[in-house]
């Protein structure tokens, strides 16, 4: 097992180098490379650009520039963000907690609801509850995240909900109302973006849990468990769910790129001070160092998630041989 983890990790390293090299090459295709924002500035002359290029080493061959970028990254330096006037590492670290909070709660919530929906659908296949959940899953997979965000804002923030004589409206932007920490206020701010970000995952994961559970229900050990006289609930939850969840681990990891993309959109619309919004702001000014740092970081996260999924799969399922 240990060897397997080590070997898979080592395999991921060349992939990470390749990703960063290709991203660096793509980003350098911008007309001025890292100096792109200066090209639009009328106060900066062509001579200034040329001098800056020389001083920053941008007149060297591309592979030399990449190697020097790589060298800095390995020493923990992602460069200087021009749009934020601070080091990229600092800019990202400041926004990372907000993004992790949003993604973490969303993953937890989606797993809970998605798996529950999947089980409900699988225990009575082709019943009304199965039909409703499957239809919901199709809607979830077809829903444009940004429009869902707008509609949720419209319903819960603009109009609000009137129930039991009270009128509720949730905040539609930001992470908190004031700088002093207030749990209730934080939860209110988190609720809408978290729900929007979870929608797609609930849809995909419930469909996946359903088909996985349907496979498990057919197996001999489930029949044995029922024949022993165990209650249907115990059979499904203790004997079935454990085995049905193994393939779900994989789909959760494979959802990582979609989750990152969803976070970009959700954070932008809900003014959530996370990495996604940082990225969108950097995009308008073509902040080379920040864009590069962000893209490499999220790709790294995706590779990490895939690795974790493979390891978890081998660990959870004794039928999988990992050498």
């Amino acid at each position: 097992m240990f060897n397997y983890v080590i070997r898979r990790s080592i395999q991921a390293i060349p992939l990470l180098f390749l990703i960063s090299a290709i991203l660096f090459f793509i980003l350098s295709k911008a007309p001025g490379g890292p100096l792109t924002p200066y090209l639009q500035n009328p106060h900066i002359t062509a001579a200034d650009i040329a001098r800056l290029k020389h001083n920053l080493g941008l007149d060297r061959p591309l592979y030399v520039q990449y190697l020097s970028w790589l060298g800095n990254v390995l020493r923990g330096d992602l460069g200087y963000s021009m749009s934020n006037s601070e080091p990229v590492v600092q800019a990202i670290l400041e926004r990372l907690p907000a993004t992790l909070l949003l993604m973490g709660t969303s993953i937890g919530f989606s797993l809970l609801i998605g798996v529950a929906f999947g089980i409900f659908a699988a225990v009575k296949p082709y019943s009304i509850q199965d039909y409703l959940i499957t239809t919901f899953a199709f809607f979830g997979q077809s829903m444009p995240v940004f429009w869902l965000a707008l509609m949720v804002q419209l319903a819960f923030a603009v109009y609000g909900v009137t129930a039991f004589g009270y009128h509720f409206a949730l905040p539609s932007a930001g992470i908190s109302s004031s700088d002093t920490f207030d749990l209730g206020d934080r939860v209110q701010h988190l609720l809408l973006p978290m729900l929007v970000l979870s929608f797609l995952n609930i849809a995909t994961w419930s469909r996946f849990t359903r088909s996985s559970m349907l496979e498990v229900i057919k197996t001999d050990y489930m029949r044995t468990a029922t024949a022993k006289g165990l209650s249907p609930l115990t059979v499904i939850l203790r004997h079935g769910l454990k085995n049905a969840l193994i393939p779900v681990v994989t789909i959760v990891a494979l959802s990582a790129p979609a989750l990152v993309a969803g976070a970009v959109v959700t954070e932008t619309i809900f003014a959530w001070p996370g990495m996604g919004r940082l990225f969108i702001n950097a995009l308008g000014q073509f902040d080379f160092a920040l864009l590069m740092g962000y893209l490499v970081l999220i790709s790294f996260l995706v590779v990490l998630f895939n690795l974790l999924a493979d390891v978890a799969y081998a660990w959870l399922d004794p039928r999988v041989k990992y050498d």
Partner: protein
Amino acid sequence: MATTAVPGALPVTTAEDEVHIERHGVWKRFRRHKLAIAGAIVLCVIALIAVFAKFLAPADPNYIDQVHWQGYPLAPNVAGHLLGTDENGRDLLSRLMFGAQISLTVAIFAVLMEIVIGTTLGAISGYYGGYVDYWIMRLTDVFLSIPLLPLLLVLTAIVSATSNKAALSFGVIVVIIGATSWPGTARLVRGSFLSLREKEFAEAARALGNKDGRIIFRHLLPNAVAPIIVQGTLDVANVIVLESTLSFLGFGIQPPTASWGNMLANAEANMSIAPWVAIFPGLCILITVLSVNYLGDGLRDALDPNMR
């Protein structure tokens, strides 16, 4: 569509019948999927509206109703605007109809490009194996590891920095999406080719002295078409959402050209006074994407019942 006749092998007398039976089965299975039929019909209607938008639209999509518009979006059914107007006094229904043209054509052309690139690379990878396979698959890994939306945003930002935002034309968006979303198809086709190349008819084709290109495209590819069609259909849905997201964020189709995504870009600011501007374009996206997904689901059941 999915012919299981054996190309390249010695002529089989019953091949014609087999093809017929197989096609019949596909149609029969597809017909059973009521929602897929419904999806196909809805898509046909939307496509017809898009094609004939010029004749069907009540107004020019960029015409500003200066007679009635007073700086705020006009409500539905006011002054002859069935769905109201946007914040610039342009007829919403007309813009939705012309927006359908953009959404559908971008999706179709981007997916065609994706299929051509993905199929070619996947076929080469699966057929030849070895070093070629290794490097094509590493490239696939790279593009599967970089989340697609941020990558597309950066690519469109580079294009707009190179010249200006107006350069983000229809064609550029198609090429950018098509050139980055092929890895899924490539993996799929490679998988099919790995098993197909070991089949007896492939060996027969090789033994007859066919060139590699001919074996790949004439003998093996026709047997790998079914999953490509299914994947391509589902990708149409993804691309419609991608394009509208890009346009919504301001890095896709540029105004004044109407696209369902960029129509929503300014809707947020006016949402409390003019919710219809935010509701209708998104509803169009949802209905179209839902139809495509149901169609894809039906095709999957029909073309390859063992795939799920």
